[in-house]
């Protein structure tokens, strides 16, 4: 790495991440941007390195964004959400029960067991549980901690929660709307086997975060190039497909309010961004 190159951090939640960022790197370099990337095994270290300036931009989960913002504020720095995928906007989470369950409405979950994704999954755990709490429903949580530290990028926890629901081990399961569609298409959830009891308001997912220590000309060039990536371009289509987007759109931060509230509610991070969840160890 030279001092002039832009260094991005990404989390290796899957082996395909190497293919994705190597593909993007090749394309960005071909378009004249001195660019490289490093991979992290979890989001916590990535965010700490971003705020410390060891990397200039980070491909952040929504929870990583929440922490980055707090860490930066505590250090007198700023981070901004430069871009996000078109697919990062307006996600929802659902809480489902078995179709033959006697639970007819959300309040019926009171005192029941809800299966969730990993402890740090915004979509599979934090946001839907905060929604239930906001509705005054007190549930017992059975977490399926798969891929802790990956902030729910690993879908395994949601999948295990669904298996537990079908096996009658939990009364309800929380998951991303898209995961529900995936699980039914896969056949894990037989069509019509579950009933949607609650659906959250739309919220946003990942963003490309930049720290103010980053050379702004490079970040601007990076942003412009990413915006210019076209799904028509065969050279960049494979990494776009792998990363699950058809185009990059502007970053926006008003879609993180539900997650910010959930982080507060469960005390996931302290005000200065310090991890505060007792049994969270990525």
């Amino acid at each position, binding site marked *: 790495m030279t001092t002039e190159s832009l260094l991005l951090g990404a989390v290796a939640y899957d082996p395909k991440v190497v293919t994705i960022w190597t593909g993007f790197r090749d394309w960005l370099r071909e378009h004249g941007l001195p660019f490289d990337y490093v991979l992290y095994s979890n989001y916590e270290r990535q965010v700490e390195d971003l705020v410390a300036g060891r990397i200039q931009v980070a491909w952040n989960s929504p929870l990583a964004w929440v922490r980055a913002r707090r860490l930066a504020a505590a250090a007198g720095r700023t981070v901004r959400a430069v871009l996000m995928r078109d697919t990062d906007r307006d996600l*929802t989470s659902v809480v489902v029960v078995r179709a033959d369950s006697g639970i007819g409405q959300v309040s019926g979950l009171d005192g029941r067991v809800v299966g969730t994704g990993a402890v740090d999954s915004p979509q599979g755990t934090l946001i839907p549980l905060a929604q239930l709490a906001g509705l005054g429903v007190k549930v017992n949580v059975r977490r399926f901690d798969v891929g802790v530290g990956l902030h729910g990028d690993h879908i395994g926890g949601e999948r295990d929660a669904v298996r537990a629901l079908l096996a009658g081990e939990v009364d309800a399961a929380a998951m991303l709307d898209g995961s529900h*569609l995936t699980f039914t298409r896969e056949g894990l959830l037989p069509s019509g086997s579950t009933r949607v009891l609650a659906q959250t308001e739309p919220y946003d997912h990942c963003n490309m975060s930049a720290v103010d220590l980053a050379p702004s000309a490079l970040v601007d060039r990076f942003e412009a190039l990413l915006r210019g990536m076209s*799904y028509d371009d065969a050279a960049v289509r494979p990494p776009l497909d792998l990363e699950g987007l058809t185009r990059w759109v502007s970053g926006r931060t008003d879609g993180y309010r539900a997650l910010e509230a959930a982080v507060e509610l469960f005390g996931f991070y302290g005000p200065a961004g310090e991890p505060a969840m007792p049994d969270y160890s990525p």
Partner: protein
Amino acid sequence: MTGHRVDLAGLGLDRGGHLLLRRALAPLPRGARLSVYGYDPALRVHLPAWCRTEGHRLEPAEPTSARGPVAIVVRGEGRDGQWAGASRAGSSRRGEVEKAPPARWGLAARGARLEEGGPEPYFDLDDRDLVWSKVAPRLYAHAAARQWDPGTAVDWDEPFELPPDVEAAVVQVMTYLVENEQAALVVPARFLGRIHPHFREVVQLLAVQVADEARHLEVFTRRALLRGETLGSSSVGGRASLFTVLEESDFALSSFLLSVLGEGSFVNLLDFLVTHAPDPVTRRIAWLAMQDERRHVLFGVSHLAEQSAVDPRLRDRLRAAIERRSDALRDTAGLNADVFDALLLLSAGSWRPEAIEAGYAHVQRLRHAMDEGRRRRLERLGFPADEAAELSALHTQNFM
């Protein structure tokens, strides 16, 4: 509202409903609005998730009535760009092939619409003049139609009695045939993965050729062990001769050595067995194998004749290949003496001197027929008669 609408009725997106959505969205311009109706209970959850991944936007429907639309899909660019720059991998018309199909066409069907990008597998045999023959489609169709089942095409229980020595001679010849067919199987198999899939019929033909040889291995082995448990001998000279064919990595030269010269001579040998073998099972399997081998020879001769018409220098290379192989085999003994003696005895049918004399004459005629056949095929490739005779004489004494 522009009035575009799609009604999924009770069909969910988890059971194929996306097909109706795609079909309804396809003809609409970007920004057009599609009202989605349906009463699958999960539709309200799945529709936003589907739209996100497909690059469309979703707007809530105005809550007019319970029978109103579930939501409005605003058509985005979606994945339309996938087919920007798409082109056809050549023509789908039968037998119409390109001179130099690009590597990026890869494994796609000839004539398929190709998404741009993707791997560029290297098939080094990618020149029409090197691999293609106009007769390939017809030969393949013929080959596919003439596949036979070793279990039923031969009456393995047909009764016959042979003197033990004559049976041993048959076993020796079968042992030799199996060895040769091993080579005839491996050689085309090695080229199969190197030929650009654009030349599909050539690949198919060679694949069937490999399958032909697999059956030949089976029937010759089965005949060898029909009455006993012991195979005949395999000489160093025989194996060395066959190995020189395996070593040839050039498709044209390999095809020349194996099909035009080797299998061509082999057809004569099988024909000899059809006429002179002492039992009906051997005569039958020789006949079956001969039909297949004739196709192999025909393809080899045809594509080399076409190639040599385009490139007259090919003949120099073919000549050099025979000479090189002859040099390599100069110090080997040639045909396994056991095989020669076995051919003589099985065609004689007994140890009576006059029968042996007749058998010897048959084998001499076989050699003559092989030489004549080679010269004829060499002339078809454009060699003058005297040169064809000279080159035929250089061919391995091991027949194949």
